[in-house]
């Protein structure tokens, strides 16, 4: 890599010009195309690409109310900016809102909620914050106090996914958009393969999901490299305070390793995920609704209700993990009952897709 750059450099560093405008100094190299371009051209091609993704995939219809899942992190901040900008520039005719979740972790959301409030003002988008306390009666701090630092990500992840949907219902929006980027999706493809989760594997690469449900979700950054989103933001200090998900983290690092060797790898993994065909004899879990809260679930109760039941009964480990014994029994159970839904049989919602 060094040899590519070292030759014919008048100045010691970054002597190359942008391959698009040929006028300014290149500041970054696009992972998709390996083009070396300047910041100004980068903003332009970045926004154009997102516009193309939105148009080519018919993500929105004129007049729709759209909630942007806003964590205060880089992805959703850039998404809020780009969507409000494109909505204006190309006259999509969308009503945009920011939707944030407050997990109730002391010190954790203070900064990020500040960022979201800043976005509210900067982009003129109305903001709605829903808290775990409001929705579930528990803050994450209270949950951690009860169950400790191990496994709390299960709670946080399951609750967050539903929180966005519930918040979106409160806002009466037609669609929910999230800032999931190409790296996130590639990672999820790998994880679903590693977990043998065929149902999610086939779903996780869709740019829009839940079209048959009340509020479809879409991911305008499906083809956008995380690295490029980072390029658009100044350093933001979003960081998981409680234990990071080790398994996911491992997949993440693997993807970053691959990217370093061959930047296209990320898009290729997404392509592989898209092109998977699942044999027609494979039994897929039925999608139904939670008997308790009505949320989509392939089980009798959705994962959030199982977790909440555990918390409220003082058995917080309920619904977390599974031992081999239980797993085997479960498989047997599924075969015998031939597709009837059984409680505890499957982790639901521990992924964000």
């Amino acid at each position, binding site marked *: *890599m060094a040899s590519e750059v070292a030759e014919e450099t008048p100045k010691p560093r970054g002597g*190359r010009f942008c391959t698009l405008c040929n006028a300014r100094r*290149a500041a970054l*190299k696009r992972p998709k195309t390996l083009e070396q371009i300047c910041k100004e051209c980068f903003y332009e091609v970045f926004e154009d690409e997102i516009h193309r993704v939105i148009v080519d995939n018919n993500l929105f219809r004129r007049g729709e109310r759209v909630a942007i899942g806003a964590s205060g*992190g880089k992805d959703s901040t850039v998404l809020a900016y780009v969507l409000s900008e494109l909505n204006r520039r190309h006259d999509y005719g969308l009503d945009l809102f920011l939707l944030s979740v407050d997990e109730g972790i002391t010190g954790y959301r203070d900064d990020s909620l500040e960022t979201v409030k800043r976005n509210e003002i900067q982009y003129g988008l109305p903001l709605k914050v829903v808290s775990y306390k409001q929705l579930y009666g528990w803050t994450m701090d209270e949950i951690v106090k009860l169950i400790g630092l191990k496994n709390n990500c299960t709670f946080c992840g399951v609750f967050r996914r539903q929180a966005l949907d519930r918040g979106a219902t409160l806002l009466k929006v037609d669609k929910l958009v999230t800032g999931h*980027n190409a790296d996130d999706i590639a990672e999820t493809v790998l994880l679903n393969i590693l977990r043998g989760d065929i149902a999610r594997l086939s779903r996780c690469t869709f740019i829009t999901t839940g079209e048959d449900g009340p509020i479809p979700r879409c991911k305008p950054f499906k083809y956008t490299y995380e690295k490029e989103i980072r390029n658009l933001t100044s350093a933001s200090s979003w960081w998981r305070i409680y234990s990071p998900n080790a398994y996911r983290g491992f997949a993440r690092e693997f993807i*970053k390793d691959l990217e370093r060797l061959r930047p296209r790898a990320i898009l290729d993994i997404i392509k592989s995920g898209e092109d998977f065909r699942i044999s027609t004899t494979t039994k897929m879990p039925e999608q139904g609704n939670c008997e308790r809260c009505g949320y989509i679930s392939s089980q009798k109760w959705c994962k959030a209700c199982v977790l909440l039941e555990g918390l409220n009964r003082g058995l917080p480990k309920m619904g977390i993990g599974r031992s081999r014994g239980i797993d085997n029994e479960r498989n047997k159970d599924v075969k015998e009952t031939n597709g009837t839904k059984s409680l505890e049989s499957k982790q639901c919602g521990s992924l964000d897709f």
Partner: protein
Amino acid sequence: MQLTLEFGGGLELLCESVKIHEVTVDLEAEETKLTMKQLLSWVRTNLIKERPEMFMKGDTVRPGVLVLVNDCDWELSGQLETMLEDKDVVVFISTLHGG
């Protein structure tokens, strides 16, 4: 040599939550320039207080850490071989965590 080093995206937590470090790096005798490779090992020794594996892997940064030298991606300046000069600004941002 005086440098401004900035840590972001969570990396600041590895150096006592300080994001911006104005540092003076002493060069080996007879050297006038510093390479990124040398800087990284200097940073690891002098600034990183915990979990160095979150910052480095082998002799370079961990994949997923974005490095900017004077606002320019270090991929364009030769990565580890990038020559630094007095008053340069080097930014390290982790993209590994959080959205």
